[in-house]
């Protein structure tokens, strides 16, 4: 019996699956500790540094400040309202894309993602052009809408968070077992009942993940509140005030620690949700293919177009502004803003593309690797791993960027060799947006029934073989979507990387910032348009490459 001999070997050597598991989890953990925990600690430890030595004085001082309650209240007000709104809007949009037969899905998908690949600065600019006191709406209709303050932040953050939520929810809605729907229907359940009893529970994990992502990125975003927030103070802006305004790392770190708390809560929440999640794609399930239903499709199409138009209007007005002589006073068309008089001209755009490609490749390996490790090897360490994986969502970019300097800018440091190269910028991007990519991949992996793994194991396959032959072939569209997401983020992100760029690694988004800083708003808009065009071109080319490789029916954007 072959069993006997292999048994003897099994006890003599560590099992190769265990080795693979330990290696994957260990490597993931090591990377997360190195590129998330170490830099975070490097800056957040400042919160304990007081003139009198180590202590909690900074916290006491901040918590007893009368403004503290107001600012925390504001932060939660924005966080919760934006999260709820975004979830509802994005769920509807994702539902329309995945579960109906409405036309122009491809275009609508790309529009939904526009806010991810336009610099956030440009979004706020668009909002100002559109809804500002002297904006398009007020000028055209003679209204006196004042968006500065809560509503400005609310609208711009909703737009900003929308694609993040859409990506996760769309992945969650992409997979479904048609049999569940057929049986519900045959039991006489109406559409609303089916939605409540089948659709909603099946996407619970996605909803929870999206809620977490939206909430944390909203409370840590300072780009929008800074531009459009008026006198409405939120915690993320407080960090900016402390660190950039007053060079007070200690107080900035105190607020940074505060922002980590929701992430800690989310970890507990995830455990609770994941227990109630079932794999909706079992091996015998029948993929749900939406059937045409003219009335329903038309209704969802109308809804999607409405949402798309809202997003598009913000971008369109920026594009328009990039072609006029002087917004809003001289609207005659001109190309003069496309002659960029920044230091390196259009060169940073090429650097950005290299960084973005590198970021996407690293993310494909390490972020989906992390999602897989966390899912496939149930170990005690996994709760910690999960926490580290989603922690970055709760970290403002500025904190992460400065943390990278403090942690890695020391000769002799094990990773010092990547410092000052575009590799560290890419690594920073990967870990800055780690949570979003991780949850995107996890949402998909969790939907794939574990019986595939088990079947593979009982046939004698090692975990490594299972990954290569079974898991990857099933999830690779999501893996690709993760890469695309990171590519788009890397093209426009600013807050962390401005601390890591060097004179020879200037990025396109930074050029937009320069132009905006010096008041050349139209030129900033024009540069941003170039970035967006690059991303769209990249998407189209990749899709074309897939087509040429004979792969059809795969969407780069899930």
């Amino acid at each position, binding site marked *: *019996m*072959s*069993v*006997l001999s*292999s*048994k003897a070997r*099994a*006890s003599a050597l560590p*099992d190769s*699956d265990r080795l693979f598991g330990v290696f994957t989890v260990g490597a993931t953990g090591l990377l997360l500790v190195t590129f998330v925990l170490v830099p975070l600690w490097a800056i957040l430890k400042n919160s304990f540094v007081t003139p009198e030595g180590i202590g909690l004085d900074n916290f006491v001082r901040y918590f007893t400040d009368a403004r503290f309650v107001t600012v925390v209240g504001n932060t939660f007000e924005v966080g919760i309202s934006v999260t709820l709104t975004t979830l509802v809007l994005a769920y509807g949009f994702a539902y329309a894309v995945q579960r109906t037969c409405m036309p122009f899905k491809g275009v609508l998908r790309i529009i939904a993602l526009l806010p991810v690949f336009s610099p956030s600065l440009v979004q706020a600019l668009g909002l100002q052009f559109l809804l500002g006191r002297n904006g398009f709406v007020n000028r055209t209709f003679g209204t006196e809408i004042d968006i500065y303050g809560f509503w400005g932040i609310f609208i711009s953050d909703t737009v900003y968070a929308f694609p993040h939520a859409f990506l996760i929810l769309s992945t969650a809605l992409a997979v479904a077992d048609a049999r569940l729907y057929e049986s519900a229907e045959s039991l006489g359940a109406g559409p609303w009942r089916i939605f409540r009893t089948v659709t909603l529970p099946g996407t619970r994990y996605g909803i929870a993940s999206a809620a977490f992502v939206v909430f944390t990125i909203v409370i840590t975003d300072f780009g929008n509140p800074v531009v459009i927030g008026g006198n409405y103070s939120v915690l993320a802006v407080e960090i900016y005030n402390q660190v950039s305004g007053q060079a007070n790392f200690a107080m900035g770190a105190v607020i940074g620690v505060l922002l980590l708390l929701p992430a800690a809560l989310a970890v507990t929440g995830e455990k609770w949700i994941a227990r109630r999640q079932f794999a909706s794609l*079992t*091996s*015998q*399930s029948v993929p749900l293919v939406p059937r045409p239903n003219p009335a329903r499709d038309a209704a969802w199409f109308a809804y999607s177009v409405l949402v798309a138009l809202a997003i598009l209007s913000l971008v369109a007005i920026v594009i328009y502004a990039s072609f006029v002589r002087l917004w809003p006073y001289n609207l005659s068309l001109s190309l003069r803003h496309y002659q960029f008089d920044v230091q390196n001209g259009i060169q940073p755009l090429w650097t950005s593309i290299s960084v973005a490609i590198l970021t996407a490749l690293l993310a494909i390996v390490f972020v989906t690797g992390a999602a897989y490790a966390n899912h496939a090897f149930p170990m005690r360490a996994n709760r910690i791993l999960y926490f580290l994986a989603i922690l970055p969502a709760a970290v403002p970019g500025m904190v992460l960027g400065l943390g990278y300097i403090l942690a890695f800018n020391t000769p002799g440091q094990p990773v010092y060799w990547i410092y000052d190269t575009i590799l560290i910028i890419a690594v920073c991007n990967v870990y800055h947006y780690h949570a979003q990519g991780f949850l995107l991949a996890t949402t998909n992996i969790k939907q794939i*029934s574990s*019986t*595939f793994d*088990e*079947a*593979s*194991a*009982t*046939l*004698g*396959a*090692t975990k490594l*073989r299972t990954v290569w*032959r*079974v898991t990857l*072939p*099933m999830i690779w569209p999501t893996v690709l979507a993760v890469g695309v997401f990171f590519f788009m983020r890397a093209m426009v992100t600013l807050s962390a990387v401005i601390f890591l760029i060097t004179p020879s690694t200037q990025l396109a988004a930074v050029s937009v910032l320069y132009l905006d800083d010096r008041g050349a708003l139209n030129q900033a808009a024009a540069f941003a348009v170039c970035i967006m065009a690059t991303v769209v071109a990249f998407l189209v080319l990749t899709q074309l490459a897939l087509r040429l490789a004979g792969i059809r029916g795969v969407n780069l954007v899930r």
Partner: protein
Amino acid sequence: MFLSLRGVTKRFGSVLAVDHVDLDLSEGEFVCFLGPSGCGKTTLLRLVAGLETLDEGEILLEGTDLSGLPARKRNFGVVFQSYSLFPNLSVARNIAYGLECRKWEKEKIKARVGEMLDLVHLGQHAEKHPHELSGGMQQRVALARALAPEPAVLLLDEPLSALDAKVRESLRGEISELQKRLGITTIMVTHDQDEAMEMADRIVAMNRGRIEQVGTAEELYWEPATRFVGEFIGRINMLNSPQLRAGFDGSAGEAALAIRPEHVVLSEGGAHSGKVRKVAFLGNTMRLGVEAGGQEIEIEVHGRRRRMNVGDTVTFDLPVDRVRRLAVSSQ
């Protein structure tokens, strides 16, 4: 013994899913784990397969302890309820999968795959992908895939329950036949008593993580050891009312007394009388629901009889040798 389970125990949190199970299988035997959902039968199978780890006890294959040996090294073939064919691989590649894992030579793999395809009559579907096949065909591929690497034991986890009735029927026969032909020791999990009774050499009736009774289909039907087995396999009347229990021992307070519906004898001037409450005509059989002594009792009558109507009064006997004394549960 070929395969032995000794004190096998598995807990999920505070729930005892499998509770000190002992069982012996001889080589070439076909055993069914039968029980309602949640009785622990699937968990027991997964423990044997190595997909779950034991909390206590041991599983021995020809005297060698398997605990600590991961599923992929046990050389057991497993067929899942949900086929679990790899959707990205063709039928042939699915079947070859286990052989590739074992590093068989290309030629040998090819030959073996052909052999297996013939075995399950799917020769012409080799290059199709699973989604192009019907459920029954997919399950046959799964069977071929599990058998291809010449496993020591074949484990079937509700292999037929996802299929529709007709297909189920024909696959039952096919699996039984294959099993006999290959002489492979097989464990099948099912909640369907007909399936178990038709296919298994021995049935292991399980309830709440424990074995209630092990035996052939006949043994389980005619001589159920416990109330659970009696009720789960076939139909049975529990005699609760003191009037019906009269005459069966003075100690009748504890033991459960039961009789199968077909063993109740309708007779003029019988010892008990009751009113007909339900009549079901099933062809050769008529099933009556009769209220007697304050409880309802089911009576099955065979052959042609005069027509009964609801409201009729009937008299019947409970033959002493047919009334079974059942333990409340196995200890």
